[in-house]
């Protein structure tokens, strides 16, 4: 079996002035080696929280994350167990993810030196890594501020690779970058996944990029996964109204000047999630029962999973185009 990471019924809570906020409210995910899983959803729906919980930056309130056969523990003050050094994360902000006061070299070899490698050997390896991510060798001796955002992101990736990552959680790794850098960095990531057979969770709010590079997609809404499936399934025939809305909102630069469709309303506050289906207040297809009963996360006939009352376990997905609109109560 190729499965390297599995997330089971994971719940992550924040403490906000003494009350608990469930930012991730029961999530199941699987990731295989060499696979890119795209995780999409609107801002505030818990993508980063999930990503951080997977690598252990945040602790799980319930459920667990199994990486390569062992449950991931929350980071403590002590050294992280060797085993989990292969589980790494790339952050969104290229300006915050490198220490402004340390040379690139020192930061890249961290993973090697901590792993016990000798410094000089580590430096040599770091040069290779930098070459892998397409940076000149003399970058080792420079400071982060001498690099552009895209270059920094490459450095951050090199740093993760130094720890011989087998799973990368990439939290919006390209959203802070320029159009041309975006393409460069995303190509680099795709390349690494293929060549090193790394598993990657690619978190993004941009469905179109996710569609391009992922193998499978998980759509998240307010702390829950509402749909997962292959890119084609999700893109061609979304089974959840939220997925459909996300796709419809993407503008196309094809000069056809068709307006993207908006999804009115905002992601609700996770402190008081709506009853029943969390999406129902914004769902154009909501039915009365949606406000009461929480839909189960079921596997459809085409092997995709979805949590919507319109879809029934084991059956072919119902095309949302065909559903008549029922006003929500």
């Amino acid at each position, binding site marked *: 079996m190729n499965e390297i990471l599995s997330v089971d019924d994971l719940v992550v809570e924040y403490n906000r002035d003494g009350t608990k906020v469930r930012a991730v409210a029961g999530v199941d995910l699987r990731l295989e080696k060499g696979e890119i899983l795209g995780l999409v959803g609107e801002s505030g729906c818990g993508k980063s929280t999930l990503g951080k919980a997977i690598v252990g930056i945040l602790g799980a309130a319930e459920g667990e994350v199994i990486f390569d056969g062992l449950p991931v523990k929350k*980071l403590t003050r*002590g050294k*992280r167990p060797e085993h989990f*050094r292969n589980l790494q994360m790339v952050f969104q902000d*290229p300006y915050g993810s490198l*220490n402004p006061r340390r040379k690139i070299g020192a930061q890249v070899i961290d993973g090697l030196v*901590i792993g016990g490698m000798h410094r000089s050997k580590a430096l040599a390896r770091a040069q290779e890594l930098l070459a892998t991510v397409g940076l000149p060798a003399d970058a080792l001796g420079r400071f982060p501020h001498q690099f552009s*955002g895209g270059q920094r992101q490459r450095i951050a990736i090199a740093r993760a690779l130094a720890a011989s990552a087998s799973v990368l959680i990439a939290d919006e790794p390209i959203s802070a970058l320029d159009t041309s850098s975006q393409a460069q960095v995303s190509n680099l990531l795709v390349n690494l996944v293929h060549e090193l057979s790394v598993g990657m969770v690619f978190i993004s709010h941009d469905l179109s990029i996710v569609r391009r590079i992922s193998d499978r997609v998980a759509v998240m809404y307010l702390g829950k996964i509402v749909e997962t499936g292959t890119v084609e399934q999700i893109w061609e025939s979304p089974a959840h109204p939220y997925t459909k809305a996300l796709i419809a909102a993407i503008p196309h630069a094809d000069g056809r000047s068709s307006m993207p469709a908006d999804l009115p309303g905002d992601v609700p506050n996770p402190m008081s999630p709506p009853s029943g289906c969390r999406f129902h207040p914004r769902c154009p297809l909501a039915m009365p029962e949606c406000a009461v009963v929480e839909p189960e996360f079921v596997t459809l006939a085409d092997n995709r999973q979805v949590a919507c009352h319109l879809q029934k376990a084991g059956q072919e997905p119902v095309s949302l185009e065909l559903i008549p609109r029922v006003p929500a109560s």
Partner: protein
Amino acid sequence: MILSPNTRKTLKALETPTEKKGKGSTNSIWRQPLAIVGLTIIGVWVFVAVFAPWVAPYDPYSQEFDKFIPPSAEHWMGTDELNRDILSRVIYGARISLPYSILLVVLSTIIGTIVGGVSGFFGGRVDATLMRITDMFFAFPGIILAMAVAAALGPEIRNAVIAITIVAWPVYARLVRGLILNSKSSDYVTASSLLGSSSIRTLFVDLRPNISGPVFVLMALEVGTALLLLSGLSFLGLGATPPSAEWGAMVSMGAVNFDRWWVGLFPGIAILTAVLAFNFIGDTLRDALDPRTAKALRD
């Protein structure tokens, strides 16, 4: 939040005056006129302190002249009530005021950094407890505690230093704690612990270089404050003991002799210039820091 990198840069540029776009290099700071003036003055004082025996025209303790000679060719700053040459005393005063102010700042920095470091590093209850204690000392009126301690232990500049240290360290503790908390949650520290470095390593490898800059600036700013406090205590008779040529004590001698204006004026100017110089430097350095840490320094 998604900001395009350049807008980010632009915002930063707008946020902060142009003077420090020198890409983090401290070189540009020394092009600031205030800093140059400050450095020059400090340089002069340090020189004077180090070479006092050669610079000073007379022995600062020698009581061989006349009483209260006004400034003249032989005695540029006149003489005091014990017939001593004031210029020589002002010069030798630099040997007391400067080193002790710096000592005070260094001591406070050490204590404050340890407390703030432990507090920020361990967080939770340790943090809460240490910060409460820090608050107590912070709220404590420094000069009053210093007076009590100095009165109790006997006025001696060493005791004054101890006394003021007791109330001066909380500033550093707060700053260091804030900086640690700030960077502790930063992505690069998280990344580092994901790579397997323990927090202790993180503290020394990742956090230390980010803390030392602002702490250094604070130290520069606090040397002036320390000098003022120390000379204030000496002015009250609770700092340096006679016959040492401490500036504050000399001002208090001058205070008794208002019409012999030179007795108090020159030591007063000595204090003013030294403090001013440190403030010039500290202020420029602070402006040169990036705005977030500069804010941490101000609060």
